[in-house]
């Protein structure tokens, strides 16, 4: 089992309140991603669940048991850090075996579990090397190996892919998702990268300034953002926001349209504008357009579109895909 319940959890460093109050339910076996901009308190929240940071109020329960005052070592959780945090003086084998040694398991069982973890993570050839002799991706795999051998109640990941290059990041993302499918253990994953959040999560928790802005499945957040912040944070490229006269026509203070919900035409449309930049990705084309009286808009069109700087284009929102927000930035 691995359900985690946060009730009214607070955190303050001296007079600085980082997390005013958070209630959250993580169900057994779920892959939950905490996402938000830097400094939103997502890592602090994870560290409080881990037991590496004290709470300033509220309770944390794992499988119904209050663990708020329990030390990190006794919570039965495993954590993968951004910096890998491997023990540099130990070989890969000893790194992976360390939690088992701490648990006092017999040597035969330790060897068996280390071998199993090394198999799952393709680390067999590196067991006798030290972390310093491994690449970033291999190190991260060792860190994951060290986490899985203890068969924890839940895994905590603190931006584990931030130090890897783009290609490796995609691979490791897949590996972690597969691992989740195989193990079926609860995972809580912290990232500032909304693409990671969208691709991996069963449930996303969007945080801003220590508050939970919205909790939901990736597509739920994409389709029905609760407010302007979530709408802008989820989705890439970012949602276009238009206020003023155009918003008033829709009876809103601000309207939001995702770049993929804007149709681009070279002949006619709702807004006329000039192309500032066009990015050709092959599969898509991102077109950045300056529209008089509306501002800068981004359109994402499928395939290759032969538009370039200075061209005149027309943009029209797809019917039924306009998000409306009130003056308090809440969705109407």
């Amino acid at each position: 089992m691995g359900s985690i319940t946060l009730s009214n959890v607070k955190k303050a460093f001296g007079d600085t309140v980082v997390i005013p109050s958070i209630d959250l339910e993580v169900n057994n076996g779920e892959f939950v991603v905490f996402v938000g901009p830097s400094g939103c308190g997502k890592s602090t929240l994870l560290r409080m669940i881990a037991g590496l940071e004290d709470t300033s109020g509220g309770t944390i329960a794992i499988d119904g048991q209050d663990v708020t005052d329990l030390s990190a070592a006794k919570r039965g959780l495993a954590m993968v850090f951004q910096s890998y945090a491997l023990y540099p003086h130990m070989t890969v084998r000893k790194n992976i075996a360390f939690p088992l040694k701490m648990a006092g398991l017999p040597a035969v069982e330790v060897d068996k579990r280390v071998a199993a973890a090394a198999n799952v993570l393709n680390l067999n050839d590196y067991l006798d090397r030290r972390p310093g002799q491994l690449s970033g991706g291999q190190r991260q795999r060792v860190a994951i190996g060290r986490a899985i051998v203890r068969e924890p109640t839940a895994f905590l990941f603190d931006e584990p892919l931030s130090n890897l290059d783009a290609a490796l990041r995609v691979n490791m993302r897949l590996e972690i998702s597969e691992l989740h499918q195989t193990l079926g253990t609860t995972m809580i994953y912290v990232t500032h990268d909304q693409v990671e959040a969208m691709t991996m999560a069963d449930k996303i928790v969007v945080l801003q300034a220590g508050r939970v802005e919205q909790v939901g499945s990736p597509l739920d957040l994409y389709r029905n953002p609760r407010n302007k912040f979530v709408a802008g944070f989820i989705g890439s490229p970012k949602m276009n926001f238009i206020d003023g006269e155009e918003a008033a026509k829709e009876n809103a203070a601000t309207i939001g349209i995702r770049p993929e919900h804007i149709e681009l035409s070279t002949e006619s449309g709702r807004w006329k504008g000039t192309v500032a930049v066009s990015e050709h990705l092959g599969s898509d084309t991102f077109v950045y357009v300056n529209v008089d009286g509306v501002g800068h808009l981004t359109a994402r069109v499928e395939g290759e579109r032969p538009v370039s700087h200075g061209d005149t284009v027309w943009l029209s929102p797809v019917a039924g895909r306009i998000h409306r927000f009130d003056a308090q930035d809440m969705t109407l």
Partner: protein
Amino acid sequence: MARAVNNKRRAVVTLIAWAVGIAIFFPILYTVLTSFKTEAEAVASPPSFLFFDWTLENYAEVQERSNYFLHFLNSVVISLGSTVLGLIIAVPAAWSMAFFPKKRTKDILMWMLSTKMLPPVGVLVPIYLLFRDASLLDTRTGLVIVLTMINLPIIVWMIFTYFKEIPGEILEAARMDGANLWDEVVYVLTPMAIPGIASTLLLNIILAWNEAFWTLNLTAAKAAPLTAFIASYSSPEGLFYAKLSAASTMAIAPILILGWFSQKQLVRGLTFGAVK
């Protein structure tokens, strides 16, 4: 052209380095040479440098007149004892200051260092009286205590610097892996800090071995280390340069040999953390 200037500069720098090296080493060399002279040759003017009648009689006489091995043993016990005791106190202190710094941690570190700026003679009388009342005068225990206190700020500072280099996340990872405080210190922190702890140990042994102010003032015969053994040769009967030199050579030889074999470790330890 540039190469010529560079070569010239290198020659000058090399020359200065050699001059400084010789200036520093010369007194030691001269002491060693004098220890092989007769008393008459030792005070001869002009002094002979290498061409004199080499003799070992000073060493024989020093051995006969005083108990070198007792002083040697005292030095070993005092320097090792004070270093080990210092480390036992300094490791936990440095650990808490490096990994759980509080608002006043820096002030405490500065305050500890400031005690090294106090002239020792300023506290000689109170310490002497305390030692007298506690019956610690002329005891190894007493010297171990006083040398531990004298060198503790340096040990704490050095270990603190090494611990600061160890990323806190590694200790957190150990905690997540189920390690308690003891496991964390024994299996993770200490092995990672071993180079630093080793050089602190070496440096402190050398400092304690060479310490003369407290060892001379708080001992008489029983607990007197090699520093007191040397001093006993600048006695009221007059100066015996050759014998004094022989005693000095015998006193500094062990630590010089230790220093020679551990110089790599020492240099690494002292420059640790200077360059990332």
